[in-house]
């Protein structure tokens, strides 16, 4: 393993993801993104729809279709550059030491195969267990994610399960080979709050049991507050702010993060003060422009903002991409 500080699991350097568009142009969906995850840590990636969260997570698994786009930069997982390894080796990592659960539990399971077969497959692919052992292991996993009647569920089809159950199955599948890193792409967005609470609790338990690091992608700041150790805020394919969860929620620096927090109606806030939304809309990635992508929506923007895209400035442990903090140290 490379000599890095305190058990670093994943290090992403200068990741850029490019998509070909229909009219022959390109979309830079992710721009020079840096990221590290330590073992056992939960890193949350927040941002609005289309800002590049899913694409980032897919690129870690190297699951972005080759014909649709290409990625640049280094993805060091346990010291290996995933952009360099063979497809075969990559396959042995997927589902094994790095696994993933998706937003849509309704469509992420194959409707024509039984649950048992789908969980069994991942075990089959990454172990040399016998059929009976695989089944046993799958049942064990189902029990672990809190599914009652696990034996029976094994022989049922996805459509016979509720959304919450399916998401548990997805988690069981992802955890079956005790991965080092679990990427969870909006795992609870499609679920009801009471079910979300169940799933979040489950994830926390599993994390403790398996010492798995989690890359949690979400747009719900409540979930972030609940789960994350560290948070990265993404906007328009870039990291705009990064800090530990407490700092970020208590003293956000970037106007976008501030706006985001002001937009959420707070349950625990008893006063009836109106929300302060961010104006305008989420920008379209196709439009190339020079300045800060948040410029048009930013209440504090000034002339420099639309001329030049700011770099990340460092305020202690907190990183902010905003000209307001120009006086601080530049790190990227």
């Amino acid at each position, binding site marked *: 393993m490379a000599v890095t500080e305190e058990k670093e699991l994943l290090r992403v350097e200068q990741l850029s993801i490019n998509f070909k568009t229909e009219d022959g142009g390109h979309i830079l969906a992710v721009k020079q993104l840096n990221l590290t995850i330590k073992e056992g840590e939960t890193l949350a990636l927040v941002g609005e729809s289309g800002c590049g969260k899913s694409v980032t997570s897919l690129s870690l698994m190297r699951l972005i279709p080759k014909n649709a786009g290409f990625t640049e930069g280094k993805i060091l997982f346990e010291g290996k550059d995933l952009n360099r390894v063979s497809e075969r080796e990559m396959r042995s990592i997927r589902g094994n030491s790095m696994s993933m659960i998706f937003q849509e539990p309704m469509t992420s399971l194959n409707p024509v195969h039984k649950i048992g077969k789908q969980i069994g497959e991942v075990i089959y692919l990454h172990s040399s267990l016998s059929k009976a052992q695989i089944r046993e292991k799958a049942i064990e996993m189902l029990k672990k994610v809190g599914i009652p009647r696990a034996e029976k569920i094994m022989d049922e089809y996805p459509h016979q399960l509720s959304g919450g159950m399916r998401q548990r199955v997805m988690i069981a599948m992802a955890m079956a080979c005790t991965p080092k890193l679990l990427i969870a792409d909006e795992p609870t967005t499609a679920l009801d709050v009471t079910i979300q609470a169940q799933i979040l609790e489950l994830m926390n338990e599993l994390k403790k049991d398996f010492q798995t690091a989690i890359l949690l992608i979400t747009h719900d700041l409540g979930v972030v*507050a609940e789960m994350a150790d560290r948070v990265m805020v993404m906007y328009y394919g870039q990291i705009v702010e990064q800090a530990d969860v407490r700092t970020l929620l208590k003293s956000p620096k970037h106007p976008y993060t501030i706006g985001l927090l002001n937009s959420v109606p707070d349950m625990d806030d008893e006063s009836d003060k109106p929300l302060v939304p961010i104006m305008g809309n989420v920008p379209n990635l196709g439009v190339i422009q020079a300045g800060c992508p948040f410029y048009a929506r930013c209440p504090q923007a000034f002339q420099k903002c639309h001329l030049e895209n700011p770099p990340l400035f460092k305020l202690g442990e907190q990183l902010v991409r905003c000209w307001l903090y120009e006086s601080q140290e530049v790190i990227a």
Partner: protein
Amino acid sequence: MTDALLDVKELKVYFPVGSGIFRRHSHFVKAVDDISFRVQKGETLGIVGESGCGKSTMGRSILRLIEPTSGSVKFKGHEVTALTKSELRRLRADIQIVFQDPYASLNPQLTIESILGEALSTHQIGNNAKERKEMVAELLNNVGLSPRHAGRYPHEFSGGQRQRIGIARAIAVNPALIIADEPVSALDVSVQAQILNLFQHLKKTYELTYIFIAHDLSVVKHVSDRIGVMYLGKMVELAGKKQLFQKPLHPYTQALMSAIPSLDPDVKKERIILKGDVPSPITPPQGCHFHPRCHYRMEACEHVKPRQIEVEPGHFVSCHLYDTTDNLTEK
């Protein structure tokens, strides 16, 4: 109590399961099962509940977009369920609906102008095309869009903007009541706040009454005066916002509130994690629909349907815990 703007009594909407030439149905989805409530002029009634509990169905059946199976809906004193087709068409200027999916709720083939223009011409608002054009411009202004966009097609707008157009269409006919069916669920947080503010703003401007449906309790809390909590076709609790949040009575409401993650990482609240999932409305549990997931389950809950009880003025709950008339042992 003054006459309510809307008075819903014992509303039931059942959907037959499976269909065929025999038309003999033994199974029904009891999407809305015996719900009663009133809405006063000028107030916002929020409705929360988990997916599939019948919120949309209830909203639609008030407008008779879905025909109610039984029950009564009185709007401004008129029985809606008894209206003829043409009377119903007139009613529709008075009650409007805003939908959840901003992508599906606008006809992709029509320009914004013709979408809004249709609303106006259907109810003979505005005397001629020119007048309507001006009205469309004004509507767009009022929902925060530029009138220059009138000639564009829906796909050229973002989700938030589309939702604004949907709202403009609803207010175009000067309704008294707007049923908003999860109008912000599909939007990003930052945009969601814009739309919520727009709703508040329009309410003042047009003196509107809302039934505001959402599954997100914090959103409902933000906009509503009173809140109804639904579970599996039933209204389990109905109370003023303050009452409900300070003193949630129904175990489900309590669980719902505790399930919402707090924005403050330091607040670790006492969480009630419910077991299991919402059961299928085709085969709802006997007795109280909530009993399989309830922490306070009693013997009676498994057999006896709870009545709606007004525990304190304006605070209704359907739970055996609060039913003092039957001699059930309290926990």
